[in-house]
């Protein structure tokens, strides 16, 4: 057989062979990809439970994707049809009446009819576009993929919601450049009176008037749930703060009388105050409150008190625009700067940029500089 005939046939058949390998890759990839997605779902659910995306979670997700690709490729290589099987598939799929199969067998024959057969096969096979072999997912892959995608969306949605609680950097006021933010945040701290952070926190937390609608207070501050974010950060910062929480609780109890008048001066506004404070108050009152709830309370309480000292009713901070028109610009700016800086801090902590043993210091810092101090 002349080399050109056999070479031409081998070339045109190898195009189909490559395409079939790709089809096999996609077919297996649909299954392995769905499995990888399922693994990522589990990781997302774990992240949602723990409240932060750790390096391990990212590593597991990336590894599962890479493994899925590798597994699909391996399966495709293993299960890809042989050249003779490819010829049979080409014949069957394209209605070639066994031209390719016969040509493959008589490729090396030198008789006249064999040459005619090979030439005829080349003529027909080279007119077949490789796209003729369509990508098709097996039924198992389709169902598995659909379930995994739905689970992925479900797992992602709450995570996005919880992530959206963190004040984005773009949301911050014009003072969000690190230097200015720090400056602005520090200023009221220096200016403010000296009540202890925990005492302040405890007082506000202990205020029974603060038992409702935490979200409203948070949204007043930055349009974001600051107290909750802080709570998560401090919770990450972990257990050593429990002690301070307890302390804060006890101090809050002792200092409640001084805080109460302010809290009760406007019961309606107090009711619209920090609910995390109210929850935390229960914890601290029992002496088992976590630092999370204590600090959450503290932040919200501080905001509320700051507003009060600033001459703005808490109800104005927490309620509609008609009341919000009055707050002094400086207080709003400080609160916004604080929230922005706080958001960055939490983000850094979530990314584990902040070492675990330093998180308590971060927490303490933010408690110290919160507006109203």
């Amino acid at each position, binding site marked *: 057989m002349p080399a050109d005939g056999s070479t031409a046939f081998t070339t045109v058949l190898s195009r189909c062979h490559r395409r079939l390998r790709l089809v096999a890759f996609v077919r297996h990839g649909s299954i392995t990809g769905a499995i990888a997605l399922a693994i990522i779902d589990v990781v997302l659910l774990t992240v949602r439970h723990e409240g932060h995306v750790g390096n391990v979670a990212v590593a597991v997700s990336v590894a599962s994707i890479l493994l899925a690709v590798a597994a699909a490729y391996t399966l495709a290589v293993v299960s890809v049809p042989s050249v003779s099987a490819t010829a049979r598939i080409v*014949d069957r799929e394209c209605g070639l*009446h*066994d*031209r390719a*199969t*016969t*040509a493959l*067998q*008589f490729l090396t024959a030198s008789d006249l*009819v064999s040459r005619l057969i090979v030439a005829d096969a080349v003529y027909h096979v080279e007119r077949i576009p490789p796209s003729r072999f369509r990508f098709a997912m097996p039924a198992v892959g389709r169902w598995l993929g659909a379930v995994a995608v739905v689970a992925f969306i479900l797992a992602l949605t709450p995570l996005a919601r919880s992530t959206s609680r963190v004040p984005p950097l773009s949301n911050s006021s014009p003072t969000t450049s690190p230097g200015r933010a720090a400056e602005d945040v520090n200023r009221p701290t220096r200016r403010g009176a000296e009540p202890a952070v925990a005492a302040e926190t405890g007082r506000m937390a202990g205020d029974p008037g603060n038992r409702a609608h935490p979200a409203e207070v948070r949204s007043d501050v930055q349009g974001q749930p600051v107290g909750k974010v802080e709570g998560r950060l401090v919770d990450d910062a972990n257990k050593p703060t429990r002690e301070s929480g307890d302390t804060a609780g006890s101090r809050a109890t002792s200092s409640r009388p001084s805080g109460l008048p302010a809290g009760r001066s406007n019961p309606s506004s107090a009711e619209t105050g920090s609910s995390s404070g109210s929850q935390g108050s229960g914890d601290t009152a029992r002496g088992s409150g976590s630092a999370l709830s204590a600090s959450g309370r503290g932040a919200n309480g501080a905001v509320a008190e700051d507003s009060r000292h600033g001459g703005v009713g808490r109800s104005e901070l927490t309620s509609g625009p008609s009341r919000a028109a009055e707050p002094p610009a400086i207080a709003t700016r400080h609160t916004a700067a604080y929230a922005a800086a706080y958001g960055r801090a939490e983000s850094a902590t979530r990314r584990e940029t902040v070492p675990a043993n330093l998180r308590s210091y971060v927490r303490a810092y933010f408690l110290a500089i919160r507006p109203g101090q």
Partner: protein
Amino acid sequence: VTDHTIAQAALFRDCFTQLRTEIARVFVGQPSVVEQLLLCFFCQGHGLIEGAPGLGKTLLVRSLSEALTLRFSRVQCTPDLMPADVTGTNIIVDSAENGHRFQFAPGPIFANIVLADEINRATPRTQSAFLEVMQERHVTVFGTTYPIAPPFSVFATQNPIEMEGTYPLPEAQLDRFFFKIAVAVPGIEDLADIMTRTTGDEEPHVTALFGADVAQSLLVVIRQVKIADPVLRYALRILHATHPHVKDAPERIRTYVRYGASPRGAQAMVLAAKAVALLAGRFHVSIEDLRQVVRPALNHRIVRNFQAEIDQVSAEALIGDVLEAVGEG
């Protein structure tokens, strides 16, 4: 050489088409019957034509011989027909120079196309005389062998209804036939056409198209067609599945078949598929070609059991099961 082969293939297609058209002038309808007859002839096989009386079985074979201008002979088989009446025998010839001597007088079997009409009415002894010639393509009389010139095809007819006074062909003899061609009752339209043609003042005649030499040259090109191993194995899988003791046999084959098709069945399938491929303009056999010729090649080779007779399960239906079981390849 290339041009010659391609030209032979083209000539085969042309001749086949012309013959089909020419025979169709006198044998109305049933193009598949005509095609099977021609395949049988060009593959140098013998055909068993089965059908009720008056369906044109004899006319069909006669038309073929007339269109090919070949030597044609007809033997009307009866119970008193002797083998010598078929093969020929030595007779005493009296001449002035040599005196009395034996001289071989060839029988009607010495022809290119032989019609053995109602072969199942001949005795087994006479039938065996036919079948020996069909297989060996020569005749031995008194120790002398006389070859039969190609092309040579025997077309036997039999009536499936009237079995009184007949000697059904044994399986071994049935196996010698390349195809079993079933002639069905024509439809209304075909019957109307037959009436018009045969009751008018002018009867249609077959025109002679070409001679034995052309026919002989066309026989060679069929065997040049190639068949790939997977396609050949497909044919063998079909054959294998007709046997009831085989694992892959369909359920009805196990129930109703006593013995499956012989290797001659596979030979017939492959050879006929080669001719079909050539007609389709290919030099290789495809699975579709095989499936096209499975029924005529195997339906007389599957030996059904008594249960199949009771349940009226035909060999045709069993072949359908086999094809379904084997799949598309």
